């Protein structure tokens, strides 16, 4: 804090009231971003977040709609800006852009962060930041980060209210769908502008000194709550290991490991002995690891602890530099959430003996990302469609796991079929649960999902056997003649990339519960096989991505007969029950 003149113990009721006001502020930022954005990934799938920070970069509040991993691209951004820009050069109306994991506080390149200083009484008082996952940089290699997209260290994106056009053009030129990007950036700017206005209204009401004082007290409060919750976990050192695979690593399996020590009201996470960083996209930078651990702690000790930096204080994290969980340049990081999901599983697995009623068995263990990209002849444009598909969520001590949901570090929405097909040359033939995929147990693991997509022949206009109905509006009148002859052969197909995990292993059960089923890919006859997560699909090809189920909890023989009867009636019984 810049102001230390005021006493450190403000009225706890005022602190609570201020906490509510700051939560409103970040929720409103997030909502503005979603509603004004253009790309499906933000407007429908809500792959974005917003946060407010103090002048030194400690998080004060984060929008609840976010995916927890987004914290990993926010917690480092203010200090990254301050490292490059002297405070005295930062003016009201400035906004900084960054995405680089190694110089900009990011966690992978598609997450573009805009951060805006907030001034009160002429002094830098807070920072508003928001992150949007721009579904761009499709069809890339992931041997190292230089293949993954354009790296942006903190740069001034707007100077005193005006966009720095040179920078904007440089970024847009490196994007595959620049029109979407332009509009999404504009929505991001609007969200931060709104935060500046709202913060100003609070300052008008309470004064700058009170704002600073209550912000500090809010972090202290969160720290007290976190410590109180950790103190309830039995002391001890707990360890866990798990097998990790992903399409890029083909047959290679890695062993992930963790030792957690609970010591009074503090937690120590020791990631010693994990594999070195890999020539694939699944490496985690430090901030991604921190965000993942903070998430897991919240789920295990108290899910209602406010999302601010006070939570971080009683937690110590050690991970070897250059390992898969704390990588260094130039490791590729695009698919880091596959590993993040497994770190959460490790933490739950390790602490299962300590807090058996709070942990879950292994969830589907992946953030299954499916990317389709290519030239859309019917609409005359290049398209990139990203979807992340949920799966089983781990069984709980007293309840079955959730079927077919986003788990742990992600919580994005799916794209409605009726929106997707209107926008891209793809058709969804099935979107369903996978019966039997949830691991058996006293409580059953959640079921995985099958999503089957067929590639349309976009050259054929409205498509094969369809009969136009006359009154339907064309979804997009614009046709670009230059695209009509954009090549043949492979270039004409749709590039398909898959990020996932648990293709080779199964999500583990707990206390006698059985594992869930593995993930897999199913292709229609004649389609080219998926190699290292990639293939080229031709019109008419069909691909089904099947995500893993989750592990069961407790002895299957102890399952409540009524629940077993329902499984049978609804056709969801695990085969090995």
């Amino acid at each position, binding site marked *: 804090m810049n102001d230390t003149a005021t006493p450190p113990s403000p009225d706890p009721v005022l602190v609570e009231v201020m906490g509510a006001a700051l939560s409103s502020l970040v929720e409103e930022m997030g909502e503005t971003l979603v509603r004004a954005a*253009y790309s499906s990934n933000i407007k429908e799938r809500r792959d974005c977040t917003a946060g407010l920070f103090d002048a030194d970069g400690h998080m004060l509040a984060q929008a609840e709609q976010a995916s927890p991993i987004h914290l990993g691209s926010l917690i480092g951004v203010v200090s990254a800006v301050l490292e490059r820009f002297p405070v005295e050069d930062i003016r009201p109306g400035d906004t900084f852009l960054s995405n680089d994991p190694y110089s900009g506080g990011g966690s992978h390149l598609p997450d573009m962060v805009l951060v805006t200083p907030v001034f009160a009484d002429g002094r830098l008082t807070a920072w508003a930041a928001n992150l949007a996952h721009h579904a761009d940089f499709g069809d890339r290699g992931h041997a190292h980060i230089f293949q993954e997209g354009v790296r942006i260290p903190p740069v001034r994106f707007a100077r005193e209210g005006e966009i720095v056009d040179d920078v904007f053009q440089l970024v847009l030129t490196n994007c595959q769908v620049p029109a979407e990007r332009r509009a999404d950036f504009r929505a991001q700017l609007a969200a931060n502008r709104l935060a500046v206005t709202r913060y100003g209204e609070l300052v008008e009401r309470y004064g700058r000194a009170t704002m600073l004082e209550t912000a500090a007290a809010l972090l202290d409060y969160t720290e007290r709550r976190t410590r109180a919750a950790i103190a309830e976990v039995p002391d001890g050192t707990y360890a866990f290991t798990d097998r990790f695979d992903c399409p890029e690593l083909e047959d290679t399996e890695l062993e992930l490991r963790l030792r957690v020590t609970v010591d009074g009201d503090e937690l120590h996470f020791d990631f010693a002995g994990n594999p070195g960083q890999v020539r694939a996209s699944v490496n985690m930078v430090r901030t991604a690891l921190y965000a993942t651990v903070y998430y897991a702690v919240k789920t295990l000790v108290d899910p209602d602890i406010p999302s601010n930096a006070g939570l971080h204080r009683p937690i110590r994290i050690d991970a070897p530099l250059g390992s898969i969980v704390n990588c260094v340049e130039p490791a590729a990081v695009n698919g880091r959430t596959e590993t993040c999901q497994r770190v959460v599983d490790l933490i739950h697995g390790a602490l299962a003996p300590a807090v058996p009623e709070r942990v879950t068995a292994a969830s589907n263990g992946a953030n299954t990302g499916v990317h389709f990209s290519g030239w859309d002849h019917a609409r005359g444009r290049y398209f990139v469609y990203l979807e992340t*598909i*949920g799966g089983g969520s781990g069984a709980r001590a007293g309840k079955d796991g959730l079927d077919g*949901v986003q788990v742990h570090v992600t919580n994005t*929405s799916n794209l409605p079929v009726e929106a997707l097909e209107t926008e891209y040359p793809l058709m969804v033939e099935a979107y369903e649960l996978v019966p039997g995929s949830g691991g058996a147990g006293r409580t059953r693991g959640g079921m995985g999902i099958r999503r*089957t997509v067929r590639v349309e022949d976009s050259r054929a206009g409205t498509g094969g056997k369809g009969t136009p109905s006359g009154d339907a509006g064309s979804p997009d009148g614009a046709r670009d003649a230059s695209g009509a002859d954009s090549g043949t052969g492979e270039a004409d197909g749709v590039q398909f990339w898959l990020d996932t995990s648990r293709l080779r292993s199964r999500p583990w059960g707990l206390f006698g519960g059985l594992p869930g089923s593995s993930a897999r890919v199913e292709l229609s006859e004649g389609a080219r096989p998926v190699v290292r997560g990639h293939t080229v699909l031709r019109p008419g090809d069909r691909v089904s991505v099947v995500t893993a189920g989750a592990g069961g909890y407790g002895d299957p023989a102890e399952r409540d007969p009524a629940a077993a009867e329902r499984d049978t009636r609804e056709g969801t019984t695990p085969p090995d029950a």
Partner: protein
Amino acid sequence: MTLRIGVDTGGTFTDVVAFDEETGALHVRKVSSTPQDPGLAIVEGLDQILEQIGGRSPADVGYFAHGTTVGTNALLTHRGARTGVVTTRGFRDLLELGRGRRPRLYDLQADKPAPFAPRDLRLEVTERVRHDGSIETPLDEDEVRAAARTLREAGVESVAVCLLYSFLRPEHEQRIGEILREELPGAHLSLSSRVLPEFREYERLSTVVTNAYVGPVVAEYLAKLRQRLAERGLAAVPHVTQSNGGIIPFEAAEELPVRMVLSGPSTGVVGAAGLCAAAGHPDLITFDMGGTSSDVSLVRNGVPKVTTGMELDGRPVRTPMLDIHTVGAGGGSLARVDAGGHLKVGPASAGADPGPACYGKASDTAEPTVTDADIVLHTLNPVHLLDGRMPVDEQAARAAVGRIAERIGLGVEETAHGILRVVTANMARAIRVISVQRGYDPRDYTLVPFGGAGPLHASQLARELGMRTVLVPPTPGAQSALGLLMTDVRADFSRTRIQRLTDDPERTAGQLGALWAELEDEAAAWFDAERIPEADRGLERTAELRYAGQNHEIPVPVPAGPLDAAALAGVLETFAAEHRRLYGYDAPDEPVEAVTVRLQAVGAVPQAKLPREEPAGEDASASLTGHREMHLQGEGFVSVPVHRRADLRPGNRVTGPAVVEQMDTTTVLLPGDVLTVDDHSNLVIAVGG
């Protein structure tokens, strides 16, 4: 036929309001609700109020409107019908998959809402329509018949049909409907192309399944009530409120019960809008605070803001409804100290049983409620409530607040103030959602509190939000019933057709005009069926627009009259202005597209003209019943005047700190507040501080 009756069924009381067109008098009656059979209390209330007015008979009633939560309660308590679903092959599980998100980010014990139709009753049929409305795969009618038989054998009482793109091309759904009628003649039938012909398949499915689930329950309730009222001799056609604040005849409501989920709260808002417009306050924020929660909404230019949907218990319900936001903050909300030493209030509530500590039924270790804090501070009468009918245990309230006070190291009164400040902050947050988050500044609005606890906390809430005026209506405890006398008959029609507005304005204007012409035909048929005279018919057109590429639409009013390129340009200007207001920018170079066009048909109902009284001067001493010690923050206990609402006359002025008591609520004036009674008997408070 000169009596107009409104009946609102609440959890505890059934409120009956009668307006006598001959005398201009307004009568209010409260009877205990009968949750097992809500119709009993309605008939009882009707009898009592007719008796109260003086020997009138049901035959004298020319208008009868009812607000009910029967449908909502069936949803919340999972007591709907056995429901089946017929859907496009490959999408049986969509009801459970939803939008794919888990319900709570960090709370892994949270569950998704249980589907109203179990998996074994959700059946797929082979068929597929494409995004352009063309047919990819024709409907397999044999499969439909087989599915119908399966559902019949399973004892299904209600069926929801939801196919992909049914909003573009309803034929397959219609054909399935015909087959189901043949195979399951007694079942309630809901087609998504009728219930919600709009895009986004999961939201449409959830809405149509909700409709199917409550359909038989609501239909049975309304049919039984209709019969009972007829037996009592009621000649008027009974109407029921919908979530859009309008009313429709019982029979019409039975097909689309999902449109009634906000039936109860919506008329309170309509009533407030009507009262306040008459009193010269067209822009207001309503604040209905009850025992467990508060409902807030915004009215602009006398018209309540509407929205196209909400989540009820985690399930999306898309139907036109007033934009009412609910927060778990009421008189019964419990206060506690959390592990970090902060004071938290709600959403847990002491409910009706045991209720607040001051009601004398709570245990010796019970947490204090908001009402207990009010008793400690004497903002509420510390001796008795409800005009003396209910004794209050002040010591029990002090003891409960004291238990919390000890833990946070504050005095009992300071802690009570703390409880009120925290609950006020929670309510302010709810009001920010429907005001600042929608681009409206609450400081430009009048706060209109009602419900038992609204007027008690309104002055403090207004201060928190910078609002300068509070208006307390005459019968805050029966606001929804009163609103039933001030509403119109309303029905909504819509079509989703995604089309660009900026490419060829002449042609698009023609296409949009044709869509509205279709909807106007439907509306005309509805007006005829409702026997609404030509002169009372009104139509309101709305287009939901966005920049091509966005996915969240902004509703834009479209003026009546022929739609040509010039009119369309006006609509686009309004859209750009709304976009600027909401998001701080517009994009003049970007194409704009229409997604859904809507038409609301309004049949004007002659409105109750509420009594007006002659001004009686500023002196309010005739209403003064005494003084009591009330605790003011930073000052301690101060003797303040207590006035009786029934004896306040138009023109009377009361300066805060002061208290105004009436049977079912208490209005608190803080220091600096100045209350004036207007000539509609509203209390208009200029907020001080």
